[in-house]
Protein backbone atom coordinates (compact mmCIF):
# COMPACT_ATOMS: atom_id res chain seq x y z
CA UNK A 1 0.00 0.00 0.00
CA UNK A 2 2.78 2.35 0.89
CA UNK A 3 5.03 1.64 -2.04
CA UNK A 4 2.75 3.14 -4.74
CA UNK A 5 2.53 6.35 -2.75
CA UNK A 6 6.28 6.30 -2.38
CA UNK A 7 6.70 6.10 -6.14
CA UNK A 8 4.73 9.27 -6.74
CA UNK A 9 6.35 10.97 -3.77
CA UNK A 10 9.63 10.61 -5.62
CA UNK A 11 8.09 11.93 -8.81
CA UNK A 12 6.87 14.89 -6.77
CA UNK A 13 10.32 15.54 -5.30
CA UNK A 14 12.04 15.31 -8.68
CA UNK A 15 9.38 17.63 -10.09
CA UNK A 16 10.05 20.06 -7.27
CA UNK A 17 13.73 20.21 -8.16
CA UNK A 18 13.20 20.59 -11.89
CA UNK A 19 10.64 23.34 -11.36
CA UNK A 20 12.90 25.29 -9.05
CA UNK A 21 15.19 25.57 -12.07
CA UNK A 22 12.43 27.66 -13.71
CA UNK A 23 12.01 29.95 -10.71
CA UNK A 24 12.84 33.05 -12.75
CA UNK A 25 10.22 32.20 -15.34
CA UNK A 26 7.56 31.87 -12.67
CA UNK A 27 8.74 35.01 -10.93
CA UNK A 28 8.60 37.05 -14.15
CA UNK A 29 5.16 35.65 -14.86
CA UNK A 30 4.17 36.64 -11.35
CA UNK A 31 5.31 40.21 -11.92
CA UNK A 32 3.39 40.35 -15.20
CA UNK A 33 0.29 39.30 -13.32
CA UNK A 34 0.64 42.49 -11.35
CA UNK A 35 0.08 44.33 -14.66
CA UNK A 36 -3.14 42.38 -14.93
CA UNK A 37 -4.00 43.75 -11.52
CA UNK A 38 -3.29 47.28 -12.76
CA UNK A 39 -5.78 46.70 -15.59
CA UNK A 40 -8.32 45.35 -13.09
CA UNK A 41 -7.87 48.43 -10.91
CA UNK A 42 -8.25 50.85 -13.81
CA UNK A 43 -11.15 49.12 -15.54
CA UNK A 44 -13.20 48.33 -12.44
CA UNK A 45 -12.28 51.64 -10.84
CA UNK A 46 -13.89 53.32 -13.85
CA UNK A 47 -16.87 50.94 -13.78
CA UNK A 48 -17.55 51.79 -10.14
CA UNK A 49 -16.77 55.49 -10.71
CA UNK A 50 -18.67 56.77 -7.63
CA UNK A 51 -21.13 53.86 -7.52
CA UNK A 52 -21.28 52.05 -4.18
CA UNK A 53 -22.04 48.64 -5.60
CA UNK A 54 -22.13 46.70 -8.84
CA UNK A 55 -24.13 43.48 -8.79
CA UNK A 56 -24.37 43.61 -5.01
CA UNK A 57 -20.63 43.92 -4.31
CA UNK A 58 -18.52 46.97 -3.60
CA UNK A 59 -15.22 47.92 -5.23
CA UNK A 60 -13.08 46.33 -2.51
CA UNK A 61 -14.89 43.00 -2.82
CA UNK A 62 -14.30 43.01 -6.60
CA UNK A 63 -10.60 43.81 -6.22
CA UNK A 64 -10.27 41.08 -3.58
CA UNK A 65 -11.89 38.64 -6.00
CA UNK A 66 -9.32 39.37 -8.71
CA UNK A 67 -6.38 39.19 -6.29
CA UNK A 68 -7.60 35.79 -5.08
CA UNK A 69 -7.90 34.69 -8.73
CA UNK A 70 -4.25 35.53 -9.36
CA UNK A 71 -3.13 33.61 -6.28
CA UNK A 72 -5.29 30.63 -7.28
CA UNK A 73 -3.97 30.80 -10.83
CA UNK A 74 -0.45 30.21 -9.58
CA UNK A 75 -1.41 27.58 -6.98
CA UNK A 76 -3.82 25.41 -9.01
CA UNK A 77 -3.91 26.68 -12.62
CA UNK A 78 -2.62 24.49 -15.43
CA UNK A 79 0.21 26.38 -17.16
CA UNK A 80 1.75 24.33 -19.94
CA UNK A 81 0.98 20.82 -18.72
CA UNK A 82 -0.95 20.15 -21.93
CA UNK A 83 2.09 20.96 -24.07
CA UNK A 84 4.41 18.89 -21.88
CA UNK A 85 2.16 15.86 -22.22
CA UNK A 86 1.77 16.49 -25.93
CA UNK A 87 5.56 16.63 -26.34
CA UNK A 88 6.07 13.39 -24.43
CA UNK A 89 3.55 11.59 -26.62
CA UNK A 90 4.93 13.01 -29.83
CA UNK A 91 8.58 12.22 -29.25
CA UNK A 92 7.90 8.85 -27.70
CA UNK A 93 8.94 9.61 -24.14
CA UNK A 94 5.74 8.04 -22.82
CA UNK A 95 6.88 4.65 -24.11
CA UNK A 96 8.95 4.17 -20.99
CA UNK A 97 5.86 4.56 -18.82
CA UNK A 98 4.05 1.88 -20.77
CA UNK A 99 6.74 -0.61 -19.77
CA UNK A 100 6.87 0.29 -16.08
CA UNK A 101 4.32 -0.10 -13.30
CA UNK A 102 3.64 3.63 -13.27
CA UNK A 103 0.30 5.26 -13.93
CA UNK A 104 0.99 8.10 -16.34
CA UNK A 105 -1.84 10.26 -14.99
CA UNK A 106 -0.63 9.91 -11.39
CA UNK A 107 2.94 10.57 -12.45
CA UNK A 108 1.97 13.71 -14.35
CA UNK A 109 -0.30 14.85 -11.55
CA UNK A 110 2.57 14.54 -9.05
CA UNK A 111 4.74 16.72 -11.29
CA UNK A 112 1.87 19.20 -11.69
CA UNK A 113 1.48 19.42 -7.90
CA UNK A 114 5.17 20.10 -7.40
CA UNK A 115 5.16 22.76 -10.13
CA UNK A 116 2.24 24.52 -8.45
CA UNK A 117 3.95 24.44 -5.08
CA UNK A 118 6.87 26.29 -6.67
CA UNK A 119 4.86 28.77 -8.77
CA UNK A 120 2.38 29.35 -5.95
CA UNK A 121 5.10 30.24 -3.48
CA UNK A 122 6.78 32.50 -6.02
CA UNK A 123 3.69 34.58 -6.83
CA UNK A 124 3.62 35.57 -3.18
CA UNK A 125 6.82 37.59 -3.78
CA UNK A 126 5.35 40.22 -6.12
CA UNK A 127 2.15 40.22 -4.08
CA UNK A 128 4.07 41.01 -0.91
CA UNK A 129 5.88 43.79 -2.76
CA UNK A 130 2.63 45.50 -3.76
CA UNK A 131 0.72 44.56 -0.61
CA UNK A 132 1.17 47.99 1.01
CA UNK A 133 -0.51 49.53 -2.07
CA UNK A 134 -3.50 47.21 -2.19
CA UNK A 135 -4.08 46.11 1.38
CA UNK A 136 -6.86 48.63 2.02
CA UNK A 137 -8.78 47.06 -0.85
CA UNK A 138 -8.63 43.52 0.49
CA UNK A 139 -11.72 42.50 2.45
CA UNK A 140 -12.49 38.92 3.40
CA UNK A 141 -15.57 37.53 5.11
CA UNK A 142 -14.82 35.83 8.42
CA UNK A 143 -17.15 32.83 8.58
CA UNK A 144 -15.30 29.63 9.48
CA UNK A 145 -17.16 27.42 7.01
CA UNK A 146 -15.62 29.33 4.12
CA UNK A 147 -12.22 27.89 4.95
CA UNK A 148 -13.63 24.42 5.65
CA UNK A 149 -15.40 24.28 2.26
CA UNK A 150 -12.97 26.51 0.37
CA UNK A 151 -9.88 24.37 0.83
CA UNK A 152 -11.40 21.15 -0.56
CA UNK A 153 -12.90 23.28 -3.36
CA UNK A 154 -9.39 24.55 -4.19
CA UNK A 155 -7.99 21.01 -4.25
CA UNK A 156 -10.81 19.78 -6.51
CA UNK A 157 -10.42 22.85 -8.73
CA UNK A 158 -6.75 21.96 -9.16
CA UNK A 159 -7.71 18.41 -10.11
CA UNK A 160 -10.23 19.73 -12.65
CA UNK A 161 -7.69 22.19 -14.10
CA UNK A 162 -5.14 19.44 -14.50
CA UNK A 163 -7.66 16.95 -15.91
CA UNK A 164 -8.74 19.38 -18.61
CA UNK A 165 -5.10 20.06 -19.54
CA UNK A 166 -4.44 16.31 -19.54
CA UNK A 167 -7.37 15.73 -21.91
CA UNK A 168 -5.98 18.28 -24.33
CA UNK A 169 -2.50 16.78 -24.05
CA UNK A 170 -3.90 13.35 -24.95
CA UNK A 171 -5.47 14.79 -28.10
CA UNK A 172 -1.95 14.48 -29.51
CA UNK A 173 -2.77 10.81 -30.16
CA UNK A 174 -5.16 12.04 -32.84
CA UNK A 175 -3.81 15.45 -33.87
CA UNK A 176 -0.25 16.58 -34.50
CA UNK A 177 -0.78 20.10 -33.22
CA UNK A 178 -2.90 20.83 -30.17
CA UNK A 179 -2.03 24.51 -29.75
CA UNK A 180 -5.16 25.70 -31.55
CA UNK A 181 -7.43 23.59 -29.34
CA UNK A 182 -5.63 24.73 -26.22
CA UNK A 183 -5.97 28.46 -26.95
CA UNK A 184 -9.59 27.95 -28.03
CA UNK A 185 -10.41 26.29 -24.73
CA UNK A 186 -8.45 28.98 -22.88
CA UNK A 187 -10.95 31.53 -24.18
CA UNK A 188 -13.87 29.45 -22.94
CA UNK A 189 -12.18 28.67 -19.64
CA UNK A 190 -11.23 32.25 -18.87
CA UNK A 191 -14.75 33.42 -19.65
CA UNK A 192 -16.74 30.68 -17.89
CA UNK A 193 -14.14 30.25 -15.17
CA UNK A 194 -14.73 33.84 -14.14
CA UNK A 195 -11.36 35.33 -15.06
CA UNK A 196 -12.78 38.09 -17.25
CA UNK A 197 -15.42 39.20 -14.74
CA UNK A 198 -17.05 37.68 -11.65
CA UNK A 199 -19.58 35.22 -13.07
CA UNK A 200 -22.35 36.46 -10.77
CA UNK A 201 -22.48 39.67 -12.84
CA UNK A 202 -23.91 37.67 -15.75
CA UNK A 203 -27.67 37.61 -16.25
CA UNK A 204 -29.20 35.20 -13.69
CA UNK A 205 -30.17 32.54 -16.26
CA UNK A 206 -26.69 32.33 -17.73
CA UNK A 207 -25.12 32.27 -14.28
CA UNK A 208 -27.34 29.32 -13.36
CA UNK A 209 -26.30 27.57 -16.57
CA UNK A 210 -22.60 28.19 -15.90
CA UNK A 211 -22.96 26.43 -12.56
CA UNK A 212 -23.53 23.16 -14.38
CA UNK A 213 -20.36 23.46 -16.48
CA UNK A 214 -16.93 22.30 -15.28
CA UNK A 215 -15.29 25.69 -15.92
CA UNK A 216 -17.23 27.28 -13.07
CA UNK A 217 -15.48 24.88 -10.70
CA UNK A 218 -11.93 25.37 -11.96
CA UNK A 219 -11.57 28.97 -10.79
CA UNK A 220 -14.65 30.98 -9.92
CA UNK A 221 -16.09 28.56 -7.35
CA UNK A 222 -13.22 28.47 -4.82
CA UNK A 223 -12.59 32.20 -5.29
CA UNK A 224 -16.27 32.97 -4.70
CA UNK A 225 -16.28 30.92 -1.49
CA UNK A 226 -13.27 32.78 -0.09
CA UNK A 227 -14.43 36.25 -1.12
CA UNK A 228 -18.04 35.89 0.04
CA UNK A 229 -19.68 35.96 -3.39
CA UNK A 230 -21.71 32.80 -2.68
CA UNK A 231 -23.48 31.63 0.48
CA UNK A 232 -23.35 28.38 2.43
CA UNK A 233 -26.21 26.69 0.57
CA UNK A 234 -24.79 27.20 -2.93
CA UNK A 235 -21.28 26.39 -1.68
CA UNK A 236 -22.30 22.95 -0.36
CA UNK A 237 -24.39 22.24 -3.43
CA UNK A 238 -21.51 23.41 -5.62
CA UNK A 239 -19.05 21.14 -3.88
CA UNK A 240 -21.29 18.20 -4.80
CA UNK A 241 -21.38 19.20 -8.47
CA UNK A 242 -17.63 19.81 -8.35
CA UNK A 243 -16.99 16.24 -7.16
CA UNK A 244 -19.17 14.92 -9.97
CA UNK A 245 -17.26 16.93 -12.57
CA UNK A 246 -13.90 15.80 -11.19
CA UNK A 247 -15.04 12.17 -11.49
CA UNK A 248 -16.44 12.69 -15.00
CA UNK A 249 -13.19 14.28 -16.17
CA UNK A 250 -11.13 11.48 -14.63
CA UNK A 251 -13.30 8.97 -16.51
CA UNK A 252 -12.87 10.91 -19.76
CA UNK A 253 -9.10 10.94 -19.21
CA UNK A 254 -9.07 7.18 -18.75
CA UNK A 255 -11.17 6.69 -21.85
CA UNK A 256 -8.96 8.95 -24.00
CA UNK A 257 -5.85 7.22 -22.66
CA UNK A 258 -7.16 3.72 -23.49
CA UNK A 259 -8.39 4.79 -26.92
CA UNK A 260 -5.28 6.80 -27.64
CA UNK A 261 -2.87 4.01 -26.77
CA UNK A 262 -4.51 1.85 -29.41
CA UNK A 263 -3.52 4.42 -32.02
CA UNK A 264 -0.13 5.05 -30.49
CA UNK A 265 2.71 3.86 -32.68
CA UNK A 266 5.46 4.45 -30.11
CA UNK A 267 7.85 6.29 -32.38
CA UNK A 268 11.19 7.42 -31.01
CA UNK A 269 11.78 6.89 -27.32
Amino acid at each position, binding site marked *: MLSPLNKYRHAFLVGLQSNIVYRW*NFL*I*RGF*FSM*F*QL*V*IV*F*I*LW*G*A*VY*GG*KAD*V*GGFDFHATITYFVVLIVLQFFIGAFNEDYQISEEIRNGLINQFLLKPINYFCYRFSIFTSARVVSGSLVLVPLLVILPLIKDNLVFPHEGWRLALGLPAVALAGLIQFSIAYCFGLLTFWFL*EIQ*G*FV*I*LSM*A*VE*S*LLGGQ*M*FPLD*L*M*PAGLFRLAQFLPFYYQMYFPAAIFTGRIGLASATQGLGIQVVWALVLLAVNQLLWNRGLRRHTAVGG
Partner: protein
Amino acid sequence: MNYLRIWLAGARYSIVRTLMFRFDFFLWAMVELFWMGVNLLLIQVIYEHTDTVAGWGKYEMLLLVGTSMIMQRFIMGFFWSNFFEMSRNIRTGNFDFFLAQPGNPLFMVTTRKIDPDSLANSLVALGVILYAAHKLNLHPGAGDIALYALLILCGLVIHYSILVMASSLTFWTTGGQGLEGSYFTLMEFSRLPREAFRGVSRVVFVWLLPVVIVSNVPVRTLLHGFDPALAGWLVVVSAAWLTLAVLVFHRGLRRYASASS
Protein backbone atom coordinates in the same frame (compact mmCIF):
# COMPACT_ATOMS: atom_id res chain seq x y z
CA MET B 1 8.70 48.88 -55.73
CA ASN B 2 11.11 46.00 -55.41
CA TYR B 3 10.16 45.49 -51.79
CA LEU B 4 6.50 45.39 -52.72
CA ARG B 5 7.23 42.58 -55.17
CA ILE B 6 9.14 40.67 -52.49
CA TRP B 7 6.29 41.15 -50.04
CA LEU B 8 3.71 40.00 -52.60
CA ALA B 9 5.74 36.86 -53.26
CA GLY B 10 5.80 36.13 -49.53
CA ALA B 11 2.09 36.78 -49.20
CA ARG B 12 1.35 34.46 -52.12
CA TYR B 13 3.42 31.74 -50.49
CA SER B 14 1.54 32.18 -47.21
CA ILE B 15 -1.83 31.95 -48.91
CA VAL B 16 -0.84 28.81 -50.78
CA ARG B 17 0.29 27.34 -47.48
CA THR B 18 -3.02 28.21 -45.88
CA LEU B 19 -4.87 26.49 -48.70
CA MET B 20 -2.84 23.37 -47.96
CA PHE B 21 -3.75 23.37 -44.26
CA ARG B 22 -7.39 24.38 -44.41
CA PHE B 23 -8.33 22.82 -41.07
CA ASP B 24 -5.64 24.91 -39.40
CA PHE B 25 -7.04 28.04 -41.02
CA PHE B 26 -10.53 27.39 -39.64
CA LEU B 27 -9.26 26.38 -36.23
CA TRP B 28 -7.15 29.52 -35.81
CA ALA B 29 -9.86 31.75 -37.20
CA MET B 30 -12.18 30.23 -34.56
CA VAL B 31 -9.60 30.78 -31.83
CA GLU B 32 -9.44 34.49 -32.61
CA LEU B 33 -13.17 34.77 -33.03
CA PHE B 34 -13.68 33.25 -29.59
CA TRP B 35 -11.25 35.65 -27.96
CA MET B 36 -12.92 38.60 -29.65
CA GLY B 37 -16.25 37.27 -28.41
CA VAL B 38 -14.91 37.06 -24.86
CA ASN B 39 -13.94 40.73 -24.96
CA LEU B 40 -17.30 41.78 -26.37
CA LEU B 41 -19.07 39.82 -23.64
CA LEU B 42 -17.03 41.64 -21.03
CA ILE B 43 -18.41 44.93 -22.40
CA GLN B 44 -21.91 43.52 -22.49
CA VAL B 45 -21.75 42.36 -18.86
CA ILE B 46 -20.21 45.59 -17.58
CA TYR B 47 -22.89 47.73 -19.22
CA GLU B 48 -25.60 45.54 -17.71
CA HIS B 49 -24.61 47.16 -14.44
CA THR B 50 -23.70 50.71 -15.43
CA ASP B 51 -24.39 53.27 -18.15
CA THR B 52 -20.99 54.88 -18.45
CA VAL B 53 -17.41 53.87 -17.81
CA ALA B 54 -15.13 56.90 -17.42
CA GLY B 55 -17.69 58.89 -19.37
CA TRP B 56 -17.88 56.38 -22.21
CA GLY B 57 -21.23 54.87 -23.14
CA LYS B 58 -21.66 51.26 -24.25
CA TYR B 59 -21.39 51.82 -27.99
CA GLU B 60 -18.53 54.29 -27.64
CA MET B 61 -16.75 51.57 -25.69
CA LEU B 62 -17.63 49.07 -28.41
CA LEU B 63 -16.08 51.42 -30.97
CA LEU B 64 -12.91 51.52 -28.86
CA VAL B 65 -12.76 47.76 -28.50
CA GLY B 66 -13.47 47.28 -32.20
CA THR B 67 -10.69 49.70 -33.12
CA SER B 68 -8.27 47.98 -30.77
CA MET B 69 -9.32 44.64 -32.29
CA ILE B 70 -8.77 45.65 -35.89
CA MET B 71 -5.27 46.88 -35.04
CA GLN B 72 -4.51 43.66 -33.25
CA ARG B 73 -5.80 41.59 -36.19
CA PHE B 74 -3.57 43.54 -38.59
CA ILE B 75 -0.53 43.12 -36.35
CA MET B 76 -1.27 39.41 -36.00
CA GLY B 77 -1.99 39.02 -39.69
CA PHE B 78 0.95 40.91 -41.12
CA PHE B 79 3.70 40.54 -38.55
CA TRP B 80 3.14 38.23 -35.58
CA SER B 81 4.51 34.91 -36.87
CA ASN B 82 7.55 36.76 -38.23
CA PHE B 83 8.38 38.17 -34.82
CA PHE B 84 7.69 34.87 -33.17
CA GLU B 85 10.17 33.18 -35.50
CA MET B 86 12.67 36.01 -35.29
CA SER B 87 13.45 35.37 -31.61
CA ARG B 88 13.75 31.68 -32.31
CA ASN B 89 15.99 32.23 -35.32
CA ILE B 90 18.31 34.52 -33.38
CA ARG B 91 18.70 31.85 -30.74
CA THR B 92 19.33 29.02 -33.20
CA GLY B 93 21.49 30.96 -35.62
CA ASN B 94 19.04 30.56 -38.50
CA PHE B 95 18.93 34.34 -38.56
CA ASP B 96 21.99 34.18 -40.85
CA PHE B 97 19.66 33.29 -43.66
CA PHE B 98 18.01 36.72 -43.53
CA LEU B 99 21.28 38.63 -43.29
CA ALA B 100 22.44 36.91 -46.45
CA GLN B 101 19.45 38.22 -48.39
CA PRO B 102 20.00 41.32 -50.52
CA GLY B 103 17.65 43.70 -48.74
CA ASN B 104 17.04 45.60 -45.55
CA PRO B 105 17.27 42.91 -42.85
CA LEU B 106 14.48 44.40 -40.72
CA PHE B 107 12.14 44.35 -43.69
CA MET B 108 13.15 40.86 -44.77
CA VAL B 109 12.72 39.44 -41.28
CA THR B 110 9.46 41.06 -40.27
CA THR B 111 7.42 40.77 -43.46
CA ARG B 112 8.19 37.27 -44.68
CA LYS B 113 4.85 35.70 -43.82
CA ILE B 114 1.25 36.73 -43.38
CA ASP B 115 -1.54 34.93 -41.51
CA PRO B 116 -4.72 34.93 -43.60
CA ASP B 117 -6.83 33.78 -40.63
CA SER B 118 -6.12 36.98 -38.69
CA LEU B 119 -6.72 39.09 -41.77
CA ALA B 120 -10.06 37.35 -42.30
CA ASN B 121 -11.03 38.20 -38.74
CA SER B 122 -10.19 41.86 -39.28
CA LEU B 123 -13.46 41.87 -41.22
CA VAL B 124 -15.25 40.83 -38.04
CA ALA B 125 -13.53 43.66 -36.17
CA LEU B 126 -14.60 46.03 -38.95
CA GLY B 127 -18.14 44.72 -38.46
CA VAL B 128 -17.95 45.60 -34.76
CA ILE B 129 -16.76 49.13 -35.64
CA LEU B 130 -19.52 49.63 -38.21
CA TYR B 131 -22.17 48.30 -35.83
CA ALA B 132 -21.03 50.61 -33.04
CA ALA B 133 -20.87 53.58 -35.43
CA HIS B 134 -24.38 52.77 -36.63
CA LYS B 135 -25.71 52.57 -33.06
CA LEU B 136 -24.01 55.88 -32.26
CA ASN B 137 -25.58 57.44 -35.33
CA LEU B 138 -22.19 58.54 -36.63
CA HIS B 139 -21.95 59.76 -40.18
CA PRO B 140 -18.28 60.47 -40.78
CA GLY B 141 -17.31 62.08 -44.06
CA ALA B 142 -14.62 60.74 -46.36
CA GLY B 143 -12.08 63.03 -44.70
CA ASP B 144 -12.89 61.72 -41.22
CA ILE B 145 -12.60 58.14 -42.38
CA ALA B 146 -9.27 58.84 -44.09
CA LEU B 147 -8.01 60.48 -40.90
CA TYR B 148 -9.23 57.56 -38.80
CA ALA B 149 -7.40 55.15 -41.12
CA LEU B 150 -4.24 57.26 -40.94
CA LEU B 151 -4.33 57.27 -37.14
CA ILE B 152 -4.84 53.50 -37.11
CA LEU B 153 -1.79 53.26 -39.34
CA CYS B 154 0.16 55.28 -36.75
CA GLY B 155 -1.06 52.84 -34.11
CA LEU B 156 0.18 49.92 -36.20
CA VAL B 157 3.58 51.61 -36.50
CA ILE B 158 3.74 51.90 -32.71
CA HIS B 159 2.74 48.28 -32.16
CA TYR B 160 5.22 47.18 -34.78
CA SER B 161 7.98 49.19 -33.07
CA ILE B 162 7.18 47.68 -29.69
CA LEU B 163 7.39 44.21 -31.20
CA VAL B 164 10.68 45.00 -32.95
CA MET B 165 12.20 46.10 -29.66
CA ALA B 166 10.81 43.18 -27.68
CA SER B 167 12.12 40.71 -30.24
CA SER B 168 15.47 42.50 -30.49
CA LEU B 169 15.98 41.86 -26.79
CA THR B 170 16.78 38.29 -27.82
CA PHE B 171 20.07 39.60 -29.25
CA TRP B 172 21.11 40.34 -25.67
CA THR B 173 19.28 37.83 -23.52
CA THR B 174 19.00 34.89 -25.93
CA GLY B 175 16.20 33.84 -23.59
CA GLY B 176 13.31 35.57 -25.27
CA GLN B 177 10.75 34.43 -22.71
CA GLY B 178 7.66 36.44 -21.99
CA LEU B 179 7.48 38.30 -25.30
CA GLU B 180 3.99 37.03 -25.98
CA GLY B 181 2.77 37.58 -22.45
CA SER B 182 4.04 41.14 -22.23
CA TYR B 183 2.69 42.10 -25.63
CA PHE B 184 -0.78 40.73 -24.98
CA THR B 185 -0.89 42.46 -21.62
CA LEU B 186 -0.06 45.75 -23.36
CA MET B 187 -2.84 45.11 -25.84
CA GLU B 188 -5.30 44.92 -22.97
CA PHE B 189 -4.47 48.47 -22.01
CA SER B 190 -5.49 49.65 -25.47
CA ARG B 191 -9.05 48.52 -24.82
CA LEU B 192 -9.42 50.97 -21.93
CA PRO B 193 -10.61 54.57 -22.25
CA ARG B 194 -7.94 57.18 -21.59
CA GLU B 195 -10.13 58.93 -19.02
CA ALA B 196 -10.03 55.84 -16.79
CA PHE B 197 -6.33 56.41 -16.12
CA ARG B 198 -5.46 58.69 -13.26
CA GLY B 199 -2.34 59.72 -11.37
CA VAL B 200 0.75 57.61 -11.94
CA SER B 201 -1.00 55.18 -14.27
CA ARG B 202 -1.92 58.12 -16.51
CA VAL B 203 1.70 59.24 -16.81
CA VAL B 204 3.00 55.73 -17.47
CA PHE B 205 0.38 54.21 -19.73
CA VAL B 206 -0.95 57.25 -21.53
CA TRP B 207 2.13 59.40 -21.99
CA LEU B 208 5.28 57.31 -21.47
CA LEU B 209 4.05 54.11 -23.11
CA PRO B 210 1.77 54.87 -26.03
CA VAL B 211 -0.43 51.81 -25.42
CA VAL B 212 -3.58 53.75 -24.61
CA ILE B 213 -3.46 56.55 -27.17
CA VAL B 214 -3.00 54.13 -30.09
CA SER B 215 -6.65 53.19 -29.88
CA ASN B 216 -8.10 56.21 -28.08
CA VAL B 217 -6.98 58.89 -30.52
CA PRO B 218 -8.53 57.35 -33.66
CA VAL B 219 -11.78 56.66 -31.80
CA ARG B 220 -11.96 60.18 -30.38
CA THR B 221 -11.48 61.50 -33.89
CA LEU B 222 -14.55 59.57 -35.06
CA LEU B 223 -16.58 60.55 -32.01
CA HIS B 224 -15.65 64.16 -31.43
CA GLY B 225 -13.97 65.24 -34.64
CA PHE B 226 -10.40 66.13 -35.47
CA ASP B 227 -8.20 67.27 -32.58
CA PRO B 228 -4.96 68.50 -34.18
CA ALA B 229 -2.95 68.43 -30.94
CA LEU B 230 -3.86 64.85 -30.11
CA ALA B 231 -3.49 63.56 -33.67
CA GLY B 232 -0.20 65.41 -34.07
CA TRP B 233 1.03 63.87 -30.83
CA LEU B 234 0.21 60.39 -32.11
CA VAL B 235 2.06 60.97 -35.38
CA VAL B 236 5.14 62.32 -33.57
CA VAL B 237 5.11 59.48 -31.05
CA SER B 238 4.83 56.82 -33.72
CA ALA B 239 7.74 58.33 -35.65
CA ALA B 240 9.80 58.47 -32.46
CA TRP B 241 9.07 54.87 -31.50
CA LEU B 242 9.83 53.60 -34.99
CA THR B 243 13.18 55.40 -34.96
CA LEU B 244 13.98 53.98 -31.55
CA ALA B 245 12.99 50.50 -32.69
CA VAL B 246 15.22 50.68 -35.78
CA LEU B 247 18.12 51.88 -33.61
CA VAL B 248 17.64 49.08 -31.09
CA PHE B 249 17.38 46.51 -33.86
CA HIS B 250 20.65 47.63 -35.47
CA ARG B 251 22.40 47.80 -32.12
CA GLY B 252 21.28 44.23 -31.51
CA LEU B 253 22.33 43.16 -34.96
CA ARG B 254 25.88 44.20 -34.16
CA ARG B 255 25.85 41.85 -31.20
CA TYR B 256 24.55 38.95 -33.24
CA ALA B 257 27.25 36.30 -33.32
CA SER B 258 25.40 33.71 -35.36
CA ALA B 259 25.13 31.36 -32.41
CA SER B 260 24.70 27.79 -33.39
CA SER B 261 24.49 24.52 -31.57
